[in-house]
């Protein structure tokens, strides 16, 4: 049973806080019915709903290629992938709702431009190799970010992430497999792959967020067990994993500073253009307006359908009550 601050006797807050802190320290899960500090709840609502929005907006750059996919097998794979993303959005909205927010309200915040989503989806997808590169690099970066979240302190979020990570890893492999096939194809196909890699490499590195020195929320989120690794650690991990994959594929990553460093036992790499990231986050990316507008239009055009469903459910309920 939940206890609100108003009802609690004097000193109860401290006891609840101590209990919460002990659970976090012992790596135990916080569940929706447990007491939690308001700032923890707010921080999670922000993170989980932005994650849900990212899944939904993330359907668009690839979704554009479903209708023109160049083989029926690729069409089925891509359609299933985009469908999975809608499913991920649904689990995550459900996880957010356990924190006392309403999905309809979160949708309003997204289409009203009041809540953000991953900036990566504000870049355009220009040729069919983008579908493969989004799978390989963007889903790959997402997995790096998300695998640790399977151990995050809030139970519903952690459990949603377990399932999502499994599906994301499947998507990453499908993306990589498309690129492998294209690299074995024509000269034109190899050029398409390289072009897509050139465009998506730096935005993928930016998916881990600003450098640690500029990430004000990182420390607190780590203390709460919401976040497990820092942005820079995850970025390094991603680069270390991706370089051998790029070599096997036969593409060049567009960073002249990229080189193995024996001393650090990691790859060194160049600095992403953080000004560009700031521009995209503040809404000035190539596709920001279009992505939100499309979601807004779908939502508003569908209002009469949702109203009809609500009215029908209401009629059915009344009919049942009369019958009783």
């Amino acid at each position, binding site marked *: 049973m939940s206890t609100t601050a108003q009802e609690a006797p004097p000193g109860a807050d401290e006891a609840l806080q101590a209990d919460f802190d002990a659970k976090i320290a012992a790596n135990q899960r916080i569940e929706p019915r447990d007491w939690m500090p308001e700032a923890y709840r707010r921080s999670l609502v922000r993170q989980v709903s932005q994650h849900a929005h990212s899944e*939904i907006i993330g*359907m*668009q750059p690839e*979704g554009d*290629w*479903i*209708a*023109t*996919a*160049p*083989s*029926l*097998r*690729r*069409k*089925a794979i891509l*359609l*299933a992938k*985009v*469908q999975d993303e*809608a*499913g991920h*959005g*649904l689990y995550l909205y459900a996880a957010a709702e356990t924190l006392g927010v309403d999905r309809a309200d979160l949708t309003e915040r997204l289409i009203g431009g009041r809540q953000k989503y991953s900036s990566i989806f504000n870049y355009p997808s220009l040729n*069919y190799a983008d579908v493969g590169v989004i799978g390989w690099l963007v889903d*790959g970066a997402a*997995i790096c970010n998300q695998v640790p979240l399977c151990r995050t302190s809030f139970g519903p979020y952690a459990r949603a992430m377990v399932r999502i*990570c*499994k599906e994301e*890893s*499947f998507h*990453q*492999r499908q993306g990589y*497999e498309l690129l492998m*096939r*294209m690299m*074995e*194809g*024509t000269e*034109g*196909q190899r050029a398409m792959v390289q072009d897509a890699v050139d465009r998506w490499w730096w935005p993928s590195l930016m998916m881990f967020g600003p450098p640690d020195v500029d990430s004000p929320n990182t420390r607190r989120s780590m203390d709460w067990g919401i976040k497990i690794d820092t942005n820079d650690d995850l970025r390094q991990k991603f680069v270390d*994993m991706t370089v051998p*994959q790029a070599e*096997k594929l036969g593409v060049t990553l567009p960073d002249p500073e990229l080189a193995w460093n024996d001393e650090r036992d990691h790859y060194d790499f160049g600095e992403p253009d953080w000004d560009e990231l700031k521009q995209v986050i503040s809404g000035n990316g190539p596709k920001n307006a279009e992505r939100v507008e*499309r*979601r807004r239009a*779908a*939502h508003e*055009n*569908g*209002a*009469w*359908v*949702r*109203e*009809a469903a*609500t*009215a*029908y459910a209401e*009629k059915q309920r009344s009919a049942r009550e009369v019958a009783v």
Partner: protein
Amino acid sequence: MSGDNIFTGLTEEHDGDARWAFGTGFTEALAGVDTTLPAGVDGEDLATYCRMLGDDALVQAQRLVHWVTDAPELEEEVALANIALDLLGQARLLLARAGQADGTGRDEDDFAYRRGPAEFLNVRLAEAPRGDFARCVTTLLVLSSWRLALFGRLTESRDPVLAAIAAKGVNELAYHREYAVSWALRLGDGTPYAHERMVEAVADVWPLTGELFATHPVEAALAAQGAAVDPATVREEVHQVLTQVLTGATLDAPAPFPAAEPAGRAGRHTEEMEPLLEELQRVAREHPEATW
């Protein structure tokens, strides 16, 4: 399988299933089915018939995918994507069977990407404009009810491949119809505005329904050989189903299906077909030598 690290498998030497972190998990729909052409069944006719049913599914799926990222609710995007995936799966099996039956060895992509509008044999209702959600529901209701009736009978086809495709398809189509029915009820008996949208959708769709039951000579010949279903034989059953659903949704009982000649089945299409195929085939045609 590369253990827990989902990344390491990518750079390992691999073939087939080992490439995938969690296995492909797909069962071959036609595993163990005898693909030999049965005696007394004309291969050319069987191929044409498979193209008819395959093209219906492919073209309908092509229309449906545009609802993904554009539906009234996320749940509808998931459901419509699912339906499109089922239809795409049916199309792939049917087109592959067409290439076996006509002896040319053409594969699913040869049929999907390297034919012009006049070579597509789908009914015109499959290519009709997407329209609003009421139109989507109505088209899906009519096509799924019709196809379910056909596939139910096709499970007895003398062609074991067609029978196996139909057996797999009936479960899928039963879900498609159930989904369409649930929305026909909500829209028809929800708000006055939605009711009007449904009235309009039924009026728009109805002129295209006659063709679904018009027997093409190939269908007649192959039905006589026990391999196909003459669509005229499901006319009454489908009309009864639609009457039950539409009146349940507080709409008027539908008019009889109009009389019609086979049009799409003979490669005669509406002006919608060319742009639909232009979109479907664009990337494949831009890279004729490519492998995907």
